[in-house]
């Protein structure tokens, strides 16, 4: 983050850093569980038994815990950081929604069909972009 004129320690209070760490841990756990479940169930390494259902359930549970930890982070966040996060979320959600609606028209015109996960990639990219723009907008000026 130093390249945009503000370091992470400048933008986050110790409490924010701690909450963000917890969110990152749950997100990583959910991502690993999702990837594992996708491979094991998708490749039929484990069949539709109790184990497969448990793995899918575990992925859902970890994802919900990641959302919960993000809400805790957002509610307790420094007020400027909260604004930047919300602006990033708004841009991500908006870009994802617009992409989902408009790309169907392009598909009818002959554009390649996209995977159902692609709008989520657009959302994530624009969420990150929104945070970058927010950090830039509110940083700068005389430091220290």
């Amino acid at each position: 983050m130093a390249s945009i004129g503000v370091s992470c320690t400048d933008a986050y209070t110790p409490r924010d850093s701690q909450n963000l760490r917890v969110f990152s841990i749950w997100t990583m756990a959910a991502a690993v569980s999702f990837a594992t479940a996708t491979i094991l169930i998708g490749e039929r390494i484990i069949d539709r038994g109790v184990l497969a259902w448990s793995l899918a359930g575990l992925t859902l549970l970890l994802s919900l815990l990641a959302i919960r930890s993000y809400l805790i982070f957002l509610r307790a966040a420094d007020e400027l950081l909260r604004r930047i996060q919300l602006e990033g979320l708004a841009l991500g959600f908006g870009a994802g929604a617009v992409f989902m609606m408009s790309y169907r028209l392009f598909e009818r015109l002959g554009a390649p069909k996209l995977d159902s996960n692609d709008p989520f990639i657009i959302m994530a990219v624009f969420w990150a972009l929104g945070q970058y723009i927010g950090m830039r907008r509110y940083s700068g000026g005389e430091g220290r």
Partner: protein
Amino acid sequence: MTNRLRELRGQHGWSQGDLAERLGVSRQTVNAIETGKYDPSLPLAFTIAALFTLRIEEIFSPNGSGVAASTLAPPRPPNRDFID
């Protein structure tokens, strides 16, 4: 909205980080308020005022002129001609 935060911080000899720690916010927030890029919430404005033992209107000025409330003319008493 303009404010005297940088001036008041300077009077106390605090860095932006020192002030941020006292207010429980990030240094980026203090910097954004000082540079006028961000207007604080009312609870944070009250916290800032309490820290410097001043009134909010002595620190923040809504008119953009940078004139603190203490330098403005006091409010006129109500016109009692009609009553008297």
